[in-house]
């Protein structure tokens, strides 16, 4: 028990994860404060406000962040907040397409260029985030689709960080820190994180700088509950439950095995 072929573990995990999709368990998802804080912030916004939706996570992180992205976007659209999108990942166009297909209001209710705009890819990581805070128009000469910025009324209004009312940073790495450093510190722009689980504790370290943090797929599931529209995040939470249980069982077995081996050795 102390040493098993790793492949046994991998097969067990692989199969166990499939179970909840085949027969969902439907355990409840309690709402955490940090998610509620993001929701409350967006509730204060309206058609006069501009939200920045910054994508710093790849398509590969969809299972974790897509439910949150879609739920937050649905909320923004519901509140009729203006939306500026840009991002730092080469595959983000697909993410944006995914959001549009899940939030069709962007095509129907919203007018492109006036109510929302997608500026495309920005290279240069932190350097670019700092640059954008100082001068958006220096970075973008045109949007993703090649329309020059002077033909996009919304982006005409967004010249520097201070023209943005809230930054929603979708982030699987350190972009949240870049936004805190260059957009919040010194400029005071509220920053909210749509993050992966590892960023849960960001709020502890930067309580003053962050509005709230949505923690991974669970944050998405909670947000779905808050806006009253259950979707993928809620279903995926079942898989989370099963896998976490498996971890605990495995850790317990590993320790029992370890103690037994040590006794035998003695």
């Amino acid at each position, binding site marked *: 028990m102390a040493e098993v072929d790793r492949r046994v573990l991998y097969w067990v995990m692989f199969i166990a994860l*499939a179970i909840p999709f085949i027969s969902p368990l439907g355990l409840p998802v309690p709402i955490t404060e940090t998610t509620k804080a993001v929701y409350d912030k967006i509730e204060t916004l309206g058609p006069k406000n501009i939200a920045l939706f910054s994508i710093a996570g790849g398509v590969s992180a969809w299972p974790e962040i897509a439910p949150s992205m879609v739920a937050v976007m649905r909320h923004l659209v519901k509140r009729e907040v203006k939306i500026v999108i840009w991002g730092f990942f080469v595959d983000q166009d697909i993410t944006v397409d995914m959001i549009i297909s899940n939030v069709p209001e962007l095509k129907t209710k919203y007018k492109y260029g006036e109510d929302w705009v997608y500026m495309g890819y920005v290279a240069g990581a932190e350097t670019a985030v700092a640059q954008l805070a100082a001068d958006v128009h220096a970075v973008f000469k045109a949007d993703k689709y090649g329309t020059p910025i002077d033909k996009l009324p919304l982006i005409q209004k967004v010249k520097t960080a201070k023209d943005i009312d809230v930054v929603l940073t979708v982030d699987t790495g350190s972009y949240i820190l870049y936004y805190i450093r260059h957009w919040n510190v010194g400029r005071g722009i509220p920053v909210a994180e749509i993050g992966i689980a590892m960023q849960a504790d960001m709020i502890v370290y930067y309580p003053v700088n962050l509005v709230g943090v949505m923690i991974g797929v669970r944050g998405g599931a909670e947000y779905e509950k808050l806006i009253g529209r259950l979707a993928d995040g809620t279903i995926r939470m079942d898989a989370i439950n099963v896998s976490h249980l498996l971890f605990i069982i495995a850790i317990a077995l590993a320790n029992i095995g370890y103690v037994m081996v040590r006794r035998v050795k003695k």
Partner: protein
Amino acid sequence: MPYPTDPLVLSGVWASVILTLMVYSYVLFRETPAFRFAEHTYISTSLAISVIVSYDTLSKNAFTPLSKGDLTYLIPIVLGLLLYTLPFKEVRWISRYPLAFVVGVGTGLAMRGAVHAQMIAQVLAAITLPKAPQPIDWFNFFFSLIAFLTSTSYFIFTREHTGVLKIPTKLGRYMIMLALGSYFGNTILFRMAMLSGRVEEILKVFGIIPWR
């Protein structure tokens, strides 16, 4: 949503699931030719995409402003081209010039961010007293404070961890472990969400669960 019928979409979802299984063959069995195929296909595709993206970045950030007559953009373009002296023995040293800029910017940016957000802000947070404290808040405050002080003592390099430093550094190690354990646990949530996403995709494409 019904199961896709459009040949383009259908071929796509099957291709993606087959490639997924090829990669997981490494994990679930061993390094197979299937994995090797997926690996090389991936790197090849990604190289091509990177070329397109870099070209796009260059034309937006350098070539377009240059064509509009902003000659200062010649500097980074020339510097960028100088990187290509690397393969040639006699002129290899020239490739260090562009790197001097890259390293300078990276170091400058990292340092300026580090001092404020990672040093000052942490000390400030450590000494900020709880507001309207209950006894439990005082406990938490001092717990964090002691954890901070002892674990920092573990990172003193110019003293051996004996004598006065023995107990604090040991306690410090425990505190670091508490932090790392929590990070470990938190990361699991994310990784499982990712893997379950792939499993869901496989089940969907094989028609085991309905398409959504």
